[in-house]
């Protein structure tokens, strides 16, 4: 049964935002919702730092000769990658929306380990501070992939400092994943069986599995890299008996699953938005749930596709190529199910839904181009070109960042207790979509035509497409700045939100006030219906 309160009560009701005041109540909080907000602000800050490096890169690429020295350009793309991957994409949705919503969605009062949750944020901040220190001191120029022996022996930039920053923030990621896994296993409300879990929770569970299993490997890899940089024993240096491909194996064992850490939460958000704005239960719930787990598992078996031209054996490359094809299947299953959900649904076009549409289209393009890259013969031609860059930006930016924005808008009323201005939000979504495609579609062509990645200078015939890309980036930047402005405004001055402005299903909407009180629920929810019960049917006996 959904409860629908037409208006939130006035500030007399204590919610998590006004439960306590003062900086100590925020910096020493153990409330998962406050920690989510701490993350939200710091992650947004890092996004713009990473974006600043991108601006530098795209400005440099306006002309074939560029404006920066080669070494400086190397640092720009390295820092862009490191900040965006480790300090924005990996934590983004799990640490913000995941932290906020997972306990609410399962009917719990908090995560299993609230203090570890706070520790996660501090580790993230410490790691970020260390990385920023490295940047201020001159940065790193190895590429975010830290390939040896350049990173271990020849680069004279702040590799170790940056590696420490990434190492520390990696523990933040591990602890978040650990927290989610335990919470989802042990703290579901009565009646909240695995089969009734929102797919947002399934997606975060799968993400957490990857975080827990993969991150330790890059941690030890960075330790070995740091030690090697100091001692020069030769573990990754071929001049003294080491194997640089070993570094790549260990690095990508994490870093490939890491991209699934980045995308699974985005898919999780889409799985919530689409049923709500189609007024229809998600089609193929079980398939989508199992697909999340399948992506997490299969994602660990494909890392060799980053080593196709690195000297990996042909046999291993063929195996990894086949597995890389397989890992596309569960993602495709999700896309089909989302589409089927919309079919004969009552679709409306609020901002979250606009971002969801963008996600489906752009993620599909990005995913399909991944199949090109998984094909050995094609990869030989397009690897380390802008084709790869366009591929992963379609997924990470066209997919993940759009899902992030969609989720922020969808749950903004729940988090802040206010409504955002729908007109501005739709406009910004449109700007983002146009800007994104103008930025990155030319890069597919550039890559196919042979422009290598990580080059500060390029042949003049590539200039037109590069200028288009930079123009698109400037539009995209506007699209990202707009939400900062209007969401910031709406937080203070927006109209008060009703408890359930979207009339969405889910414990966080139906049984928790907006914004939620510190312990989330007035009384512990008891779940009696399946997820996404938009048609109001009672569950068939025997399921769930």
């Amino acid at each position, binding site marked *: 049964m959904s409860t629908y309160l037409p208006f939130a009560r006035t500030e007399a009701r204590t919610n998590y935002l006004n439960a306590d005041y003062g900086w100590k109540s925020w910096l020493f909080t153990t409330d998962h919702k406050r920690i989510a907000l701490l993350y939200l602000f710091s992650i947004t800050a890092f996004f713009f730092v990473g974006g600043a490096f991108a601006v530098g890169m795209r400005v440099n690429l306006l002309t074939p000769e560029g404006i920066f020295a080669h070494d400086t350009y190397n640092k720009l793309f390295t820092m862009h990658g490191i900040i965006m991957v480790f300090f924005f994409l990996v934590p983004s949705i799990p640490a913000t929306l995941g932290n906020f919503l997972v306990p609410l969605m399962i009917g719990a009062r908090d995560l299993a380990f609230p203090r570890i949750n706070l520790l996660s944020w501090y580790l993230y901040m410490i790691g970020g501070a260390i990385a920023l220190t490295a940047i201020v001191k001159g940065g790193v120029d190895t590429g975010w992939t830290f390939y040896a022996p350049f990173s271990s022996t020849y680069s004279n930039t702040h590799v170790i400092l940056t590696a420490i920053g990434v190492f520390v923030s990696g523990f933040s990621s591990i602890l978040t994943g650990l927290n989610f896994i335990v919470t989802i*296993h042990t703290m579901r409300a009565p009646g909240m069986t695995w089969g009734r879990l929102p797919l947002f929770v399934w997606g975060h569970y799968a993400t957490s599995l990857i975080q827990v*299993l993969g991150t330790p*490997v890059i941690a030890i890899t960075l330790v070995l890299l740091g030690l090697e940089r100091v001692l020069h024993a030769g573990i990754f240096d071929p001049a003294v008996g080491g194997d640089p*491909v*070993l570094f790549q*194996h*260990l690095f990508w*064992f994490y870093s490939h699953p890491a991209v699934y850490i980045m995308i699974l939460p985005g898919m999780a958000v889409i799985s919530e938005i689409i049923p709500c704005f189609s007024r229809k239960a998600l089609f193929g719930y079980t398939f989508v749930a199992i697909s999340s787990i399948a992506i997490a598992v299969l994602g*660990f*078996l494909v*890392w*060799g596709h980053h*080593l196709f031209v690195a000297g*990996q*054996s*042909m*046999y*291993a490359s*063929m*195996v*990894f190529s086949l597995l890389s094809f397989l890992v596309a299947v569960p993602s495709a299953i999700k896309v089909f199910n989302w589409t089927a959900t919309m079919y004969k649904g009552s679709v409306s076009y609020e901002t979250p839904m606009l971002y969801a549409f963008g996600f489906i289209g752009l993620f599909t393009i990005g995913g399909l181009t991944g199949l090109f890259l998984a094909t*050995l013969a094609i990869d*030989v031609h397009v690897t380390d070109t802008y084709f790869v860059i366009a591929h992963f930006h379609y997924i990470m930016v066209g997919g993940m960042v759009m899902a992030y924005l969609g989720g922020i808008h969808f749950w903004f009323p729940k988090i802040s207790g206010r409504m955002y201005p729908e007109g501005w939000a739709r406009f910004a979504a449109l700007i983002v979509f146009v800007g994104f495609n103008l930025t990155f579609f030319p890069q597919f062509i550039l890559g196919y035509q042979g422009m290598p990645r990580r080059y500060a200078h390029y042949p003049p015939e590539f200039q037109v497409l590069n200028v288009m890309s930079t123009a698109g980036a400037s539009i995209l930047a506007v699209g990202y700045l707009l939400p900062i402005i209007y969401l910031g405004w709406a937080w203070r001055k927006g109209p008060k939100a009703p408890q359930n402005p979207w009339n969405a299903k889910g414990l966080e909407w139906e049984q928790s006030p907006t914004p939620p009180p510190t312990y989330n629920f007035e009384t512990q929810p008891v779940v009696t219906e399946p997820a996404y019960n938009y048609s109001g049917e009672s569950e068939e006996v025997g399921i769930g």
Partner: protein
Amino acid sequence: MTHPVVPIKTYAAVFGALLALTITTVAVSKLELGEFNFVAAMTIAVIKGTLVVMFFMDVRRATSLTKLIVGAGLFWMAILFVFVLSDYASRGWLPGPRWF
């Protein structure tokens, strides 16, 4: 915590077995057995590890979820080993791409 208390004898027996196996593995390492040295040493290590996991860490009486987690951890380490080593082992089995 709901489990009955394990008798000291059991723990002592496992302890004794672990020490005996340690002595065994050192003794076997002194023999000239070629490749079998490695196999023997690893087998004994696996047995010792299993004893610690099953008895000292009480996985023997743990929930299925705990067993699943232990299994998953070992499986994931196996993924790392098998795939990395298969790359090194299979270098040269198939010719690399040619440019002509």
